[in-house]
């Protein structure tokens, strides 16, 4: 941390362009060694104030001879005289927003820059007030997710805005994606009208999770907000062993599985294209309980005749049968489900409860893709119907829903994205009040079109060139951000950019896992709860 006070003058603008940013000549009493790349500054233009970030710091000389024959190191006097005159420090500042001065930025807050400050505009370190103006203050809809790097200011996200579009959290394994997701989920739970449906592959969001390295247990959503979160499980036994209080055990009936679900699993189940085609034919021919009936088909003349009728080759059928067998072996798949999981999830969601679906021991990708896609598709259909009904003016629109999926590239890769429901949700965005929160470690494997539709992206450290390119595609100032992204610490640092923030910001997510941090998260909540209780007591 530097000891500069906020709003300390740094220098003046001497050159610049909109594309490349401005050159700032450092005052002779500001030392280059006090400057840090990534610090925020304000530029007092004649008509507007600009908000920008230091992206480079350099040393300059007015006369090349100084570089050739510099003064002796013992000659402190000459060095002192030359400093700031013939030798100077200069900053490269990228103006990003205008924060005051024109009508728009006063009425609508910070605006993207479309010009550069005029010559000799003063450049100051951004003050707390400026930072607050840009990054917001925690309030009813803004949620504090962390601090901009090296700063005390709170970075606040407008969650109402955030959940209106699909968003992504990326980062290599072990960089803190899960922690970040938990924080964001709590934010959505507390500060937006939206509810979450979380497909929790590794059982980390509902109940206890472990910190990186497994050294300590950290609490999860249901423990902090028992009244707002319901835990559904596919693996009751596992949940019970872990001491999770579950609200519902999900069972999936054969009838619930549609040909689309199988087609999505083509790669995981090692099915041929022809086998996938055959599924659709079987569905048409055999009706709703096609899967059960197909599996029951014995190797008889009749079967062969049936297959020939549908022009399904024998080997194709065997291939398919093997695949379906894998599905049938999943313990949560039953021939007829006693209760409708979708209906139950919808009931909870309608009541404003957040639903975490734990997969227990079934962490293999087949189970995850099958269940997530199947449930999401049905829920999406319900939402679509409700939304259409509300458009007709009869009822209120359904509560906005955010579906969280992990290993998202399995659903959203270019091959399957057009066929999965998640591809549709990502593209159609908020039309039906359903958006995605995508968590992934290989963003390059996700369909480009879907990546481009994401509103806000938060990324932890990535070091694969293709992943970095995929995440940053289409962002202005991509090259500068690339340097920032590559310099993020391997843990507890992330870069956020897109719809919900006025400008890209590298930040340190707020603490999670300590008693104080839980208190901070639930603090407001408990007060409200207490107040409600008090009111109730008063009138009872």
């Amino acid at each position, binding site marked *: 941390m530097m000891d500069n006070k906020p709003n300390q003058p740094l220098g003046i603008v001497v050159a610049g362009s909109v594309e490349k940013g401005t050159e700032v000549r450092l005052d*002779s009493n500001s030392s280059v060694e006090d400057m840090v790349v990534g610090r925020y500054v304000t530029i007092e233009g004649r008509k507007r104030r600009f908000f920008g970030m230091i992206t480079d710091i350099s040393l300059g000389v*007015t*006369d090349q*001879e*100084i570089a050739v*024959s510099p*003064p002796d190191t013992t000659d402190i*006097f*000459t060095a*002192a*005289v*030359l400093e*700031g*005159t*013939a030798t100077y420090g200069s900053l490269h500042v990228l103006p990003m927003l205008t924060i005051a001065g024109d009508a728009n930025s006063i009425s609508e807050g910070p605006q993207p820059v479309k010009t550069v400050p005029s010559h000799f505009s003063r450049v100051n370190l951004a003050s707390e007030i400026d930072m607050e103006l840009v990054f917001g203050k925690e309030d009813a809809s803004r949620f504090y997710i962390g601090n901009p790097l090296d700063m005390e200011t709170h970075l606040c996200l407008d969650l109402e805005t955030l959940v209106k579009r699909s968003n992504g959290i990326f980062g290599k394994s072990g960089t803190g994606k899960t922690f970040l997701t938990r924080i964001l989920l709590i934010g959505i739970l507390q500060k937006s009208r939206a509810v979450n449906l979380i497909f929790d592959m590794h059982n980390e969001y509902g109940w206890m999770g472990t910190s990186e390295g497994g050294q300590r247990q950290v609490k999860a959503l249901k423990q902090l907000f028992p009244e707002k979160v319901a835990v559904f499980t596919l693996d009751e036994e596992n949940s019970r062993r872990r001491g999770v209080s579950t609200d519902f055990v999900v069972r999936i009936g054969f009838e619930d599985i549609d040909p689309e679900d199988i087609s999505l699993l083509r790669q995981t189940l090692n099915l041929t294209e022809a086998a996938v085609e055959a599924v659709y034919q079987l569905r048409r021919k055999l009706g709703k309980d096609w899967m059960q009936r197909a599996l029951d088909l014995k190797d008889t003349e009749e079967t062969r005749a049936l297959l020939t009728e549908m022009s399904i080759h024998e080997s194709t059928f065997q291939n398919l049968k093997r695949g379906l067998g894998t599905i049938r072996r999943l313990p949560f798949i039953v021939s007829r489900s006693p209760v409708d999981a979708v209906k139950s999830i919808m009931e909870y969601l309608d009541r404003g409860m957040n639903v975490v679906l734990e997969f227990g021991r079934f962490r293999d990708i087949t189970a995850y893709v099958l269940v997530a896609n199947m449930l999401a598709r049905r829920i999406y259909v319900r939402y679509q119907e409700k939304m259409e009904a509300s458009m007709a003016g009869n009822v209120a629109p359904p509560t906005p829903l955010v579906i969280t999926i992990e290993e998202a590239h399995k659903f959203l890769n270019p091959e399957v994205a057009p066929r999965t429901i998640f591809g549709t949700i990502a593209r159609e965005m908020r039309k039906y009040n359903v958006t995605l929160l995508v968590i992934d470690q290989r963003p390059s494997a996700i369909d480009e079109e879907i990546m481009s539709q994401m509103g806000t992206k938060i990324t932890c450290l990535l070091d694969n060139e293709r992943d970095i390119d995929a995440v940053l595609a289409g962002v202005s100032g991509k090259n500068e951000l690339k340097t920032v992204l590559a310099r993020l610490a391997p843990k507890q640092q992330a870069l956020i950019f897109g719809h919900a923030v006025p400008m890209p910001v590298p930040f340190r997510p707020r603490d999670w896992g300590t008693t104080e941090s839980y208190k901070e998260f639930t603090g407001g909540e408990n007060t409200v709860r207490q107040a409600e209780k008090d009111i109730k007591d008063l009138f009872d």
Partner: protein
Amino acid sequence: MENKIAEVIAAGTADFTAECYELYDIPPLGSLVKTIDSPSEIFAVVCQASTTSIEPGRRPIARGKNEATAEAVYQANPQLLKLLRSEFQALVVGHKNDNKILQYLPPKPTRIHGFVFPCSPHEIKEFSQSFEFLNLLVNSSAQIPSGELIAATLREMTRVQPDPQAFLVTAGKKLVTLLSGDYQRTKAILGRLTL
């Protein structure tokens, strides 16, 4: 007005020449002097001095062959003090009008026979609050190299400053800007500034 040391005997817009009242009582090179040309005062920096015979055609001759010291020569020849004279040239670096110091050339040269006074420490401090006068020195056509003159002037001024080092650094910075593109010259002057 008792501390007058010389009298103007030739005057131009950019400089003047003054004859000292006492032989060898010449103000040091680079020192700040002033002459009053009512209502304004003209400030100048001593840039050249000489002691010569009062008659141009009559050159002094050597007289000390049998004397032990140079002082004894003067004691043996008291007329010498009347036959020789000391004079100095000063570059005008500013003037004071209505109690305001302006570090640029006055509208007209001073008058002949104006008295010349050394500046008091207070006046030097007041004058050296700004370094605009350095520009006149840098561009002067004095007989001695301008670098020598600038260094001498700043050294003289430093004597009365409460924080000599800070004063020199500030002056040096101004100089660097004035001499930008001529690093070697700047370096040479800076080398002569150390006290």
